[in-house]
């Protein structure tokens, strides 16, 4: 437990850990604590955004091109399916 997290040459320490003990164990490196809103994982955001975009494009391709473009298709009223 209490493994320090190294990001961009800075070392962050698990907060739960730092509350329990003032001295980091095992690593003799300077520690900087940042606040909640200072944490800015822009790379992760970009990556997830890209995944999200791919997901949306694939959905449109699958539904509107592959499914609706595959005429003729089974039609009927929605009520028929419920009854």
């Amino acid at each position, binding site marked *: 437990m209490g493994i320090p997290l190294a990001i961009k040459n800075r070392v962050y320490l698990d907060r739960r850990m730092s509350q329990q003990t003032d001295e980091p164990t095992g690593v003799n490196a300077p520690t900087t604590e940042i606040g*909640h809103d200072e944490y800015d994982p822009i790379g992760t955001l970009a990556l997830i955004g890209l995944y999200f975009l791919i997901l949306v494009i694939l959905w449109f391709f699958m539904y509107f091109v592959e499914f609706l473009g595959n005429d003729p298709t089974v039609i009927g009223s929605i009520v028929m399916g419920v009854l």
Partner: protein
Amino acid sequence: MNIHAYEKLWLIAALVLIVGFIVTITYGSVGLGIAMIDDSEDAIEPSELSEDERFSDPRVEQVGENEYEAYVVAQTFIFQPDPIEVPENSEVTFYVTSPDVIHSFSVVGTNINTMVIPGEVSTMTAEFDEPEEYGIICNEYCGADHHNMEGELHVLPEDEFDMTELSVEAPDEVELGDEAAFDVSVENGQLDDLETTIELEVGDETLTEDVTVAGDSTEETTLTVDTDDLGEGDHDWTVTVDDHDESGTLSVVEELDEGDDDE
């Protein structure tokens, strides 16, 4: 609760995505009328299909203007009728069942695709706008010859499509001097009246008769030819109604050999 700005963004985007999925599916079913194949039809006894009025004679029937119903039986290892013929610009409801094992009814390259379960009637409606020939395959393993189980669905241009059936009964042998009677029956499977001409060619003689066959009925008529005009010998005959014809040979003999049956 302190939620990070990026996390909020992600939560909102994920919710919007889910709403987007629901909106597209709703648009498909409400806006475009896309339906799922369900079990709304009553179950039937698979061993008694030959007594079922829908499936004893697998066929295509016209039920309204541009509306057709196709009763299809999928069995090891064929589809009946084969080919299924429907006109363009039509709305066709397929009723498919199986007398033996589980098959499928898959119109290749389209979304018309269903399982065919013995005792159940799979029902689906589709619109056909353009003339085209589709293949039908079975994609549920149904036995040793499953890979050869295929059928065809022909969407025909309107001027090539008809549901007319012609049958002719004619004698094989007629005594010279007698009249040869050709009993012609024209069946009109469509709902509109069919105005057409029956043409009988026998030897050098040509007889025509204009008939009007009412919708969904059969018109029978008899064309008679005087054998004196034909003369003795074998005469090929052909009865033509629109694109349908039936032919045979009529023998005109000096005297009918009464003993023919005993030989």
